[in-house]
């Protein structure tokens, strides 16, 4: 028996086929482009997503040939927060406004004033960031009233694909959590907030659990893609929830640290333990009854990419620049010889929730080389993640180890830096398929391949390496982290001032 996991990301879609023993038989991907019609805008056409999904599903059935009959279920993981607006005929009204689109900062401020932090946290347990669905919806209401009037339903990215595959309108708890109008604790849309903001709950879909079966795939779709007629689609989950699931992080005490383009620190909790100040996101997990606290660093691996592609533009090196930087950075001592990096290249979420702040190096000396800078970028990103860890300690959900995923774990150096900066053992995984694996596990459970998520995880998630922290490095990093935190307080006014000057000149 087989399940298919699909991760609908921003840069592309990825598909894996998983067998009942947890082996990944096949994987494939298809890239997406993002449109940035104005600074701070970020959009994609949902029908491009669907075309991409059909392509990878087609490849999967071609690969399986006769074995395609063994496919029991499909599950999707998806980029969060994006607003997909569809009309009564089920057609997309305008391009989807994505999670990293920041045009709705005025709406965000308006909500904060209108509702207030305390009530937001009481009603939906989260603060309304520009990235969340709610401010985007209000932006459309204010700026594109004609489009707003056409809205029949507001879907999240992967839910639009589920709709195209099955014809059913629904969402599930883990993705609904990122809208800022879903009461995570009560597991339902917040009628109170919707009525304060004069939004109708009619435009919102029904909310399922992640392993719930949405429906059997539409016969026409099954035929077009050469999939079995009885293949079902499960509700799936938000990419962060699925990545955690695909890393086996479903219980309290476990923590996932993901260093991809962005970075996250995610820790499940069965109950209500969360940060009363709203510095961490508090979302439903893909496992029924579980929630998680999550801190987000917007530019994690992206910071290193920026360094390579922008700062070192046309840098002449025949080999792999990342490998080179890793090697150079490995020869630099802990702390990069007195160099600090702030990774706020696109503002920051946790813990600052501030779109105006910017990145920077502090402590540069003529003696520093690319190795110092590369290392300080890895260290700075890890310090920024530690900000989330410290909040978790404050609310008593401190982990005793972290599972490192997302791509950062491929760098031996960065894995050690995480262990040393966190003072925690770091585990890496063998089947490192992240969110797509989580989606495939959800599909496997929904499709009856496994009894429950534990069985799916047990089969498919295997620890690869364990990296223990080095005590003297950890002590040294404590000093640097302390400086990282304290310095930001004095630096922030300058960063905000520079933002304003740039906007005004």
């Amino acid at each position: 028996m087989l399940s298919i996991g699909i991760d609908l990301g921003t840069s592309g879609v990825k598909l894996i086929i998983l067998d009942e023993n947890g082996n990944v038989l096949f994987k494939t991907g298809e890239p997406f482009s993002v449109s940035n019609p104005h600074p701070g805008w970020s959009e994609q056409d949902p029908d491009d997503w669907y075309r991409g999904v059909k392509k990878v599903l087609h490849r999967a059935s071609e690969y399986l040939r006769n074995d395609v009959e063994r496919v029991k279920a499909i599950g999707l993981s998806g980029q969060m927060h994006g607003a997909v607006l569809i009309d009564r005929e089920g057609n997309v009204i305008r391009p989807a406004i994505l999670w990293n689109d920041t045009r709705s900062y005025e709406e965000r401020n308006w909500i904060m004033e209108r509702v207030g932090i305390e009530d937001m946290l009481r009603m939906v347990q989260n603060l309304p960031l520009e990235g969340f669905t709610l401010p985007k919806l209000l932006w459309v209401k204010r700026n594109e009233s004609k489009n707003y009037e056409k809205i029949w339903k507001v879907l999240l990215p992967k839910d639009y694909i589920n709709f195209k595959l099955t014809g059913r309108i629904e969402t599930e708890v883990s993705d609904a959590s990122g809208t800022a109008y879903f009461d995570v604790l009560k597991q339902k849309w917040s009628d109170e907030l919707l009525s304060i903001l004069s939004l109708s709950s009619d435009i919102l879909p029904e909310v399922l659990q992640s392993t719930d079966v949405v429906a059997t795939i539409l016969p026409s779709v099954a035929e077009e893609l050469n999939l079995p007629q009885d293949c079902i689609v499960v509700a799936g989950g938000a990419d962060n929830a699925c990545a955690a699931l695909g890393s086996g992080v479903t219980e309290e005490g476990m923590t996932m640290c993901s260093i991809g383009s962005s970075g996250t620190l995610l820790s499940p909790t069965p109950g209500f333990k969360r940060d009363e100040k709203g510095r961490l996101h508090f979302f439903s997990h893909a496992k029924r009854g579980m929630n998680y606290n999550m801190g987000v660093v917007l530019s994690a691996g992206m910071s290193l990419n920026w360094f390579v592609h922008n700062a070192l533009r046309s840098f002449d090196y025949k080999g792999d620049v990342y490998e080179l930087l890793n090697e150079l950075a490995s020869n630099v001592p802990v702390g990069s010889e007195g160099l600090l990096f702030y990774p706020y290249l696109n503002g920051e979420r946790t813990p600052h929730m501030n779109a105006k702040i910017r990145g920077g190096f502090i402590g540069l000396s003529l003696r520093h080389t690319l190795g110092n800078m590369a290392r300080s970028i890895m260290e700075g990103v890890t310090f920024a993640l530690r900000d989330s860890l410290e909040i978790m300690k404050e609310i008593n959900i401190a982990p005793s180890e972290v599972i490192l995923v997302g791509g950062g774990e491929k760098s031996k150096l960065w894995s050690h830096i995480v262990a040393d900066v966190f003072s925690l053992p770091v585990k890496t995984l063998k089947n490192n398929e992240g969110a797509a694996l989580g989606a495939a596990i959800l599909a496997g459970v929904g499709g009856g391949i496994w009894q429950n998520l534990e069985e799916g995880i047990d089969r498919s998630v295997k620890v690869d390496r364990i990296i223990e922290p080095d005590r003297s490095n950890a002590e040294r990093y404590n000093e640097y982290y302390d400086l990282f935190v304290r310095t930001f307080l004095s630096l922030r006014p300058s960063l905000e001032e520079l933002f304003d000057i740039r906007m005004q000149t």
Partner: protein
Amino acid sequence: MAKEYLLGTDIGTQGTKTIMVDLKGKVVASAFSEYDVIKPRPSWAEQWPDVWVKAAFDTIKETVQKANVKPSEIAGIALSGLYGGSGVPVDKDMNPIRPCLIWMDRRATDEVQWVKENVDKDKIFEITGNYVDSYYGFTKMMWIRNKEPDNWKKIYQFITPKDYVIYKLTGENATDLSSAGNIGGIFDIKKRNWSEEMCKILGIPISVLPKRIVKSADIVGKISKESSKLCGLLEGTPVVAGGIDAPVASLSAGVLEEKSHVAMIGTSICWGVVHKGQHLSPKLVSFPYVAYDEEMVYTFGGAATAGGIVRWFRDQFGGKEREVERELNISAYRLLDEQAEDVLPGSEGILLLPYFMGERSPIWDPDARGTMIGLTLYHTKKHIYKAILEGVAYSLRHNIEAGLESGLELADECIVVGGATRSRLWMKIFSDVTGYPIKTITQDVEAPYGDALLAGVGTGVLDSYKRIKDWVRFDKVIYPDERAKGIYDRYFVEYKKAYESLKETMKALSKIGSIKM
């Protein structure tokens, strides 16, 4: 045979240049030799003197060969040099004991602290015209005494870099007033001699200082038989003392009057103004000028790194540009300039503090560190490069501001000399940031040109310092753009604020960053 030609050699931090000019100031030939500073730790900077000796001898020889003139037609040579900090510590046989701690070195922080706690600020300022910082040579001498007692015992004297080279050329050991004055702390600026009192207070025996102090245009000695073979000059050719590179570069730009101010922008910035000794400031550095040495004082301030950072950026980030440079012979700096040309003033939100080697005036903070803030995903290499050029320009403005605050009167234009003048983009930025029209010199010369003049005056083939006025030709003046100036005014406010808010962090980083793991 008529003496028709003069030689000037400037021993810089990163290279030595020798030029030959005729008596009308026309450059006949030149040669350059590049080297690097030894930086064993952050904020340390030192050099073995043989590097300078070799570069000086080589470039003299090459210049003479290129000029194709008879050595007998050369009237004389003068040498200027980087500020050698401690000077080269030598033993009785005049052999170096350890590398020279040059001006850029900032390690003597304990010694500075000791002076601040134990020596009356007014007293040291009253006698020397200067205060204390690890920039000054006397603190570096104290560092060797405190931290390397074994070396200290062996020390016969401290010889400045160019005086060490002159010793190798002539066998004579002397120094000039500007070089002696620049050591600070132990030099009496009014008496124009070592201060016995300050030597006692600071614990530096007067015997470790050269006994013979001459004027910059005085002849120290003559080319010896041995050195003649190595440098290609005739035995007996007069060698004139010269002085510290920054004032000699000012002289090369024709500065003989009060209020004239010149920024020498090379590895670092020395922005200086000439006056009669009435505007000394504890925030700035003062010592006798290299012309009219007995009356005029040169007061200057300066960023510890300027071109040094640009070079650092080229070496770290400019792999491609360097390759094009090698293949097509177009300077990597020019290629970087071209990319940065269209970047808006303020580099679209990036602010750079250029304290990559600590900072001299006006903040005098050896623990200050380079800072680059305001980075976003949007920014690319060209923005960072332009932000570096701007950051250095803010540091010049900071010094000019300190000079004006201490009462110095300044001419309406600022003259700029040094390697940086090759970048018109940078000159435009300096003008827009400071608001001063910038005048540059057509001849790509600077300090060696001033040396040649001193050689001419010293040997008597030129009748007056004033001949420099006939020699110098200026380029078209670059005027500031009001709109750009307005933008830079805002960034400059942030520049000063950012240092104030980051200074404690920089100190902490410099402390934990220098511990070897």
